[in-house]
């Protein structure tokens, strides 16, 4: 098919490539000029690009380019810029106590927002993404606080943790009353009684009545004679509607028999005092602090 003669398509007058399939020939139109120009422009651009930007791999490293640009350096610069932008208000937060942080609109807005994102990373695994808690992990939205809900108390709890490895950690230990202290029927009695403290109806009225004495002898020292709790000792209030380990006579009996104890890490050694204050600001913004 191919020879030295130019093969012209007689309809369009355009030269063909000489290839033919079932009588159909391929026209050999030139590339559109704009297309060629674009191609040449990209070639010129590519040459310049490989000179000023990192481009060629070497054995141990790569060419650095005239501008010394790297994506890692780029992100470092961005993050340094972010840190620089935050520095002013972070310094103010570092110097202020939590009450002052919450009183100043600028510090408060920054702290609540920053604390919110720290919370999602550090705290949400146990307390839930909305701080709604779970069985054994307190709900931070409500107004029931084992270790106190005042801003200072919240800061101290976050900073030093609960039953954590920290000199100033929140420490409390409820005895396992099932291990030889109380008899099973006494545990059932005190569980029935404790349930009535929060307005619940006892499963066994007689047991509940008997439980009052058991409670006074064994529990009131920490939980108070009315079950009002003691935040300084970390003894939960029993005369309310909120139960950390579920609320029912059986659940209470289980907790009296062999109590579970939650642990929260001390965050100040890991995050520093500013982040702790920011976290506290976020928790306070949830509305349960008092």
């Amino acid at each position: 098919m191919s020879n030295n003669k130019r093969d012209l398509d007689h309809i369009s007058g355009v030269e063909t490539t000489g290839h033919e399939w079932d009588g159909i020939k391929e026209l050999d139109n030139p590339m559109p000029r704009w297309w060629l120009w674009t191609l040449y422009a990209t070639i010129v651009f590519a040459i310049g690009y490989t000179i000023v930007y990192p481009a060629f791999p070497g054995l141990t490293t790569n060419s650095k380019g005239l501008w010394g640009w790297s994506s890692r350096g780029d992100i470092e610069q961005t993050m340094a810029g972010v840190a620089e932008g935050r520095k002013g208000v972070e310094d103010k937060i570092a110097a202020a106590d939590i009450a002052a942080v919450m009183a100043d609109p600028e510090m408060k807005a920054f702290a609540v927002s920053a604390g919110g994102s720290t919370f999602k990373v550090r705290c949400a695994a146990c307390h839930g993404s909305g701080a709604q808690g779970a069985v054994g992990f307190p709900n931070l939205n409500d107004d029931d606080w084992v270790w106190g809900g005042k801003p200072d108390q919240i800061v101290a709890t976050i900073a030093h943790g609960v039953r954590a490895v920290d000199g100033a950690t929140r420490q409390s230990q409820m005895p396992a009353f099932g291990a030889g202290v109380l008899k099973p029927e006494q545990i059932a009695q005190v569980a029935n009684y404790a349930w009535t403290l929060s307005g619940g109806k006892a499963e066994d009225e007689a047991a509940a009545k008997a439980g009052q004495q058991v409670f006074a002898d064994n529990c009131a020292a920490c939980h108070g004679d009315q079950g009002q709790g003691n935040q300084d000792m970390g003894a939960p209030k029993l005369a309310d509607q909120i139960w950390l380990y579920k609320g029912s006579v059986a659940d209470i009996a289980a907790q009296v028999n062999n109590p579970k104890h939650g642990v929260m890490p001390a965050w100040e050694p890991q995050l520093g005092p500013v982040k702790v204050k920011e976290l506290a600001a976020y928790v306070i913004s949830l509305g349960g602090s008092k």
Partner: protein
Amino acid sequence: MSEGTHTIIDRSDVAAVNTGAKSKGELYVKKEKIYPKNVSGIYRRLKWIIMAITLGIYYITPWIRWDRGPIAPHQAVLLDMAHRRFYFFFIEIWPQELYFVAGLLVMAGVGLFLVTSVVGRAWCGYSCPQTVWTDLFIAVEAFFEGDRNARMKLEAAPYGLRKLAIRFAKHLTWLLIAVATGGAWIFYFADAPTLLKELLTGQAAFIAYGTIAVLTFTTYVLGGLMREQVCIYMCPWPRIQAAMLDEDSLVVTYNDWRGEPRSRGTKKSKAEGLVAGDCVDCNACVAVCPTGIDIRDGQQMECITCALCIDACDSIMEKLDRPKRLIEYTTLRDYNHNMALATAGGNGINPLLVRMPQGGFVDGVKHFNWHTVFRPRTFIYMGMWSLIGLGMLIALLTRDHLRINVLHDRNPIAVKLSDGSMRNGYTVKLLNMQPDGRSVTLSIEDLPGSEMTVAGMEDKKGRSVEIPLEPDKLANLHVFVSVSPQLLKPGKSQFKIVASDFRVGSTAVYDATFDTEGVSQ
């Protein structure tokens, strides 16, 4: 006619560049340069006036000042993207009210229908920015290079000092106009005097310079280089307009019922006893056409109805002492009527059937009549247009300057408190759309046993809380609503969150939901 037509008129040696339907078969046509001839006449004058008005509006509007007091900008027309406000003289629009802008666009659309059904593509011919700027660029070209023949000669000449100088001056002027076009655009988005100062001292935002650069490029390319190509190949309107026109729309038409058969030598034809129409085939209409068509081929997509061919033809008819408007704005109905008269002989067009021997036309010939403008279709368009306008005006005048928006917290939805009551959280947004600060009462209604606290104002509790609002700002509040255990209803309860300004009697209500589901523990 005592003189031969040759002596009075210049005959242009020109063929239509864009022949549209005639050039079938080719999908790609190489651009052929068009050299529109200068022309004068009533439509040319009208186009100059409209150009002056439209360009004037475009360039001057951002510089008009409007006093809005201390808290709002003083620019009459301003699209304040950074603060999300749109100012138009006495009107201030928030992003929530962008439907006003949508309404304006609908009105512009219906207005376009109306104009098109009455006078065809008047938008294309007179006020489309592409037409206005192309017209301006052609005027600049004619200023530097001369009229059609001089321009063609210059194009054909080899590049020398003179040609380079002329071309340089032309393109420089075009670029300056293009820069001014892009420059004027950005003044609609920021305070014009401040921005001008920043622009000149190199302190303006990159986006400002970038926008100017892009618009400079598009203006230069579309108005200077591409011109009619934009109308013919890029613009959808020439295609859409076919559906807008009817037989009562005024369109630029060559009246071949009196023009045909064309004759270059009327004297000679007369001597030979041939019938000759009014068209002397001088091609003036083709030479002046900015889109390079021959209007005598009939109505065509490429025609933007700029009516310059009417001016060109009229000047020839005047010289020949024949009735003007061989090319004119006429309706298809009139045209068909007159055509029927001229072809009544059955032997093609015979202009003698419509012409009086002493000049003028027979009585049966129909001419433009104002009644065609007022017909049901245009009334419907006018009615639609006015209704939308009226509706928007009423909405604008009666709109409330206090608005409320509520978002129910969903993580967690509900929180049980130690006394057994239930609490829901809401993000409440209060929009104070007036330029003064005020105090608004936020209250909950139809929710028995409820109490409200606003984050940051914990000292105020109860069924209603006074909220101070800053002028022309949105207040973002976090509101906690709790219901006591005695009056708590399980499931969802509907209630209202109400913001009221009792002094001016404006109230905004949001229908909210209180939910006891989804409680953890």
